[in-house]
């Protein structure tokens, strides 16, 4: 299988991101450029945020609750192990095939990929909390919900956020192939390589990588803001 396209170069890809380029299939119409890149970038961020929010809504309460009552270890760990083995391409392919295309179908599918790491990490994070701290909180008359919210969650934040970051990464990565299921993301440059050419392909890869590193950086920042100062002193 040979691919006959102009050889990609990083210079060409950067140019593609900022200025529209000639394409060999659109009949003279230029492709790419800053506006298109931004449009796809925003699409990518939209579907990522939606999917991550869905994953959080489902996985965080379940993980925290199971960790709090100390049951369902097999369930939580099993979900985590199975989640890791789900092929991203299969998720997108099956959603497009069996359920349908578009944001409404793709975002929940991406959320499934994010659920596993968030669920496991919130479970493990809560389980790792010193039982003495929980005992003390109970002794002070805190309700179970208050214990989860005010004791366990704050102490588990570093682990929970580790799961959120892992979930965000897998969602951003998989959103790259979302154009296969009719959601326009930066992956459009990659999937439709006969339209955008190899420079477009490379441009897509550069933008996706930058987006992933940026979001990861922002979440790391958020993590350190959410972690109480007392915990930071201990873990340095």
């Amino acid at each position, binding site marked *: *299988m040979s*691919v006959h396209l102009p*050889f*990609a*170069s*990083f210079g060409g890809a950067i140019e593609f991101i900022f200025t529209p380029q000639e394409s060999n*299939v659109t009949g003279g119409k230029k492709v790419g450029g800053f506006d298109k890149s931004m449009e796809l970038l925003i699409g990518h961020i939209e579907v990522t945020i939606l999917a991550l929010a869905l994953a959080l809504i489902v996985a965080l309460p379940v993980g925290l609750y199971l960790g709090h009552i100390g049951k369902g270890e097999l369930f939580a*760990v099993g979900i985590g*192990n199975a989640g*890791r*083995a*789900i*092929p*991203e*391409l*299969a998720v997108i*392919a*099956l959603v*497009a*095939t*069996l359920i349908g295309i578009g944001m409404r179908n793709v975002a929940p599918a991406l959320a499934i990929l994010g659920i596993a790491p968030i669920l496991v990490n919130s479970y493990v994070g809560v389980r790792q909390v010193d039982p003495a701290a929980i005992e003390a909180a109970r002794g002070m008359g805190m309700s179970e919900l208050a214990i989860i919210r005010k004791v366990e969650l704050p102490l588990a934040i570093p682990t929970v956020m580790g799961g959120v970051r892992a979930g965000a*990464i897998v969602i*951003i*990565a998989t959103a*790259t*192939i979302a*154009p*296969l*299921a*009719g959601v*326009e993301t930066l*992956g*459009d440059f*990659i*999937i*439709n*390589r*006969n*339209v955008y050419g*190899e420079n477009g*392909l*490379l441009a*897509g*890869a*550069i933008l*996706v*990588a930058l987006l*992933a*590193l940026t979001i*990861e950086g922002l979440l790391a920042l958020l993590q350190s803001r959410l972690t109480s100062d007392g915990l930071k002193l201990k873990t340095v």
Partner: protein
Amino acid sequence: MASPFLIAAGEVGGDFFHERSSGTLPCQAKETQLFCWDWARENIDRYGTPTVQHLEIVVLSIVIGFTIAFALALLAHRRHRLQSPMLVATGVLYTVPSIAFFFLLLPVTGFGRDTAIIVLSAYTLQIIYRNTILGLANVPESTKDAARGLGFTDRQILWKVELPLAIPEIIAGLRVATASTIAIATLVVLISAGGLGTEMYGSNFNFPTAILIAVAIIGLMVLAFDLLLLTVQRLTTPWRKVRPQ
């Protein structure tokens, strides 16, 4: 926008429709049904080559990734100052989405299996490195002291005391790395490196049977490797009773 499906068909799944529309197959009119056993029975052969390709890519990536990560971990174990920088470096590699990674290497290594193996091995580094470091750090100081008291050199302590005791963590890292590598290897179809992703991508997303068979093979592969690694762990740590998670 041109339909992405057209491109998918043109590039990797060219023969798929041809075979399916040849008229001899039972389910072609019922493409929407969830699973077509007749098609599966007649076409299971086509999964042979992709499965072998998939296995080759996974095994090579894991072997290369493990060798590098293990060496890095030993180095960092000796020089503690290197630990965090290496964790950050492997972390960055892990954060860049695999698809982006494939194409970032395009100007350097082009399409094909080499690029696939480079990316997938880079992906395993973080988890194997981290678990090896963790395993070595968890060895109790008293155990090392006892070995020192018996006259072990530092090198002997590393190979005969610390590493054997770190095996459960190292294997745990390998299990995670292997499972995710098997899953991610479906994406190497995008750089024409074959594997089971070919059967998903080539199905043009309107024939669930073809995708589900590939998913099932991947599931079996994950289980097989997991059992294999657990067995290795059991054999190499006879002093420890292993409970599968």
